[in-house]
């Protein structure tokens, strides 16, 4: 490999690195928008537990993780978390979530927050107020 090719490769690598870090920075930066008062968000999740304590049910685990994760955003739970017939769970949160909060909330729910609990967010719908 001659010298020119090495320099060009180094420049390309540096540019890709800088671009990648910039994109990641934008993706993980909190930029909050104004939320319409009275708006609500419907959360649909399904969960799975692995090697949990016998006395702890999936519903309890789901509730615990949702309660932990809603502390990271401005919304609060409205009512109880409902367990649906298909095994998924439904919860309402108010006020609504802006784009950053939405990503943060979804990320927290799908992250490894509680040992042995894995949640998948099926939908995070903004309800018309």
């Amino acid at each position: 490999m001659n010298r020119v090719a090495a320099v060009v490769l180094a420049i390309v690598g540096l540019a890709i690195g800088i671009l990648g870090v910039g994109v990641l920075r934008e993706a993980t930066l909190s930029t909050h928008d104004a939320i319409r008062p009275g708006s609500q968000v419907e959360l649909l999740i399904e969960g799975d537990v692995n090697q949990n304590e016998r006395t702890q049910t999936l519903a309890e685990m789901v509730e615990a993780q949702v309660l932990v994760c809603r502390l990271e955003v401005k919304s609060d739970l409205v009512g109880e978390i409902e367990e649906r017939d298909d095994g998924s769970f439904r919860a309402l949160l108010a006020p609504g979530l802006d784009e950053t909060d939405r990503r943060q909330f979804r990320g927290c729910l799908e992250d490894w927050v509680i040992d042995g609990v894995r949640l998948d967010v099926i939908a995070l719908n903004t309800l018309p107020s």
Partner: protein
Amino acid sequence: MKIIAWLAGVGTLIASGGYMVVSLNRWEWNRALFFGLIFLIAEVALATALILRRLTRLEGRFDPAVEGIIRATRPPARDRFAWLNESAQNSNVFITFIVGGGIILSGIAWLVDRIAAGTTTPAGEQKLASALAPISYPRGGLLLDDITVLAQEVPGADDRQIRKLLRRAGHTS
């Protein structure tokens, strides 16, 4: 076997790095930390393997004949403690230093002990006590007796410290 190990290492590095970026992008911090840790482990392992491979190659390049010549012409190492190897029958500087130093240190310690003992005679202690008498506690303690309290009621009597003590005791005069 080596190829499999190298592929596993590189694969782990790429996969963990990719998952780390994806997890960061999804705001999944615990997952990102975990994959970052795996990435770091794979990186350190690969770097160590590369360095070891380079060292092995360097070792393989040595010509045994040249190595033998280098070893043969190497100057002898200086034995800086050769004097310690002398037999005990000869007079040894090291032992002389140890014994002589011990005697001198013992003499200094004895002298310091004598001087320190001379500073604590009974007469000296009495002098010290009399010198510290002005700042000693009063014989009756810090509580005020009735006479002193009544004396404060006399017009013109004004002792700030006693008034302070009286205020603390609840006297309002």
